[in-house]
C-alpha cells in the first residue's frame, strides 16, 4: 500500500428537507475532519444527487456517488431523526452501492430537535450498516436540541462540543487505517 495515500472520509448529509439543521452539523463535521492529518474529506449532500427509480439495482445507481464510495476509506453519516427513524431517501441512496462499502468503517452523527440526540435513528441504522458490509465504530456524535447548537450563520456556539467530535474522529481514523490495510493486504483465504 502506498504509505503516502491520504485517507478519504466523506461526510454524507442524509436529508433533503428544506431548512434542515443537519446541514450545520454536516458542515461542522467536514470542518473538523478536514483538520486531521493525512485525511481528505468532502460533503456529499443527498439533496443534490439524482434519485433513480426502476426495477433493477443498476437503475438506482448513481455513478458519481458510487465512485466516491469506492474511493472512501471511511464514511461519516449525518442523519436527522424523523419519527424515530432515519430518512427514507438516505436508505435509498445507501442501497445503490454494495461492494464499495465492504470492510470500511462508518461513524454516525445524529441530529434531533428533542432531547435524545437522534439515538433512535442510530439504532435503526445499525443493522443496515452491518448488512451493507460497513463496520460501525463505538463513538457517535449526538446533537440533542440541535436548534441550540448553532447560530444563524451555522457556527457552533459551544466550543466544548468539538471534544466529543475529536474522540469520534480519532476512532474512525484508526479504523480507517486498519481496515484499509486489511482490505488491501490480508487475504480471506
Amino acid at each position: 500500500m502506498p504509505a503516502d495515500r491520504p485517507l478519504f472520509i466523506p461526510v454524507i448529509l442524509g436529508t433533503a428537507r428544506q431548512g434542515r439543521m443537519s446541514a450545520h452539523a454536516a458542515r461542522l463535521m467536514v470542518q473538523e475532519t478536514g483538520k486531521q492529518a493525512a485525511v481528505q474529506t468532502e460533503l456529499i449532500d443527498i439533496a443534490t444527487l439524482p434519485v433513480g427509480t426502476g426495477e433493477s439495482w443498476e437503475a438506482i445507481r448513481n455513478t458519481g456517488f458510487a465512485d466516491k464510495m469506492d474511493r472512501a476509506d471511511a464514511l461519516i453519516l449525518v442523519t436527522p431523526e424523523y419519527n424515530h427513524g432515519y430518512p427514507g431517501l438516505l436508505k435509498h441512496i445507501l442501497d445503490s452501492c454494495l461492494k464499495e462499502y465492504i470492510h470500511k468503517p462508518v461513524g454516525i452523527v445524529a441530529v434531533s430537535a428533542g432531547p435524545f440526540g437522534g439515538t433512535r435513528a442510530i439504532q435503526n441504522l445499525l443493522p443496515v450498516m452491518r448488512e451493507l458490509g460497513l463496520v460501525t465504530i463505538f463513538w457517535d456524535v449526538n446533537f440533542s436540541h440541535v436548534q441550540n447548537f448553532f447560530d444563524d450563520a451555522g457556527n457552533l456556539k459551544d466550543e466544548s462540543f468539538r471534544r466529543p467530535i475529536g474522540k469520534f474522529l480519532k476512532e474512525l481514523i484508526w479504523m480507517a487505517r486498519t481496515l484499509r490495510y486489511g482490505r488491501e493486504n490480508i487475504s480471506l483465504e
Partner: protein
Amino acid sequence: MPAKSDPMICSQCGVEMNLHAEKLVEPTNAQEAARLDLALGGLIEEIYTCPECGKAHSRPLS
C-alpha cells in the same frame, strides 16, 4: 496466501487484487434467483481490493 487460479486484476494498476470478503447478497432478478444457494439463502459475491489504488471490485463466486 494460496494463489487463485483466476486472480482478479485491477483494471487501473494491472496488479493482483486482494480477496478480502465473501458477501451474501440477495438475488435481484430471475437469473440470479436461479443460481440461489439454498443452504446459504443467497448468492455469494467475492469482494476484492487493489493493494495499489484501493479500488474495489466484485464478482460472483466461481
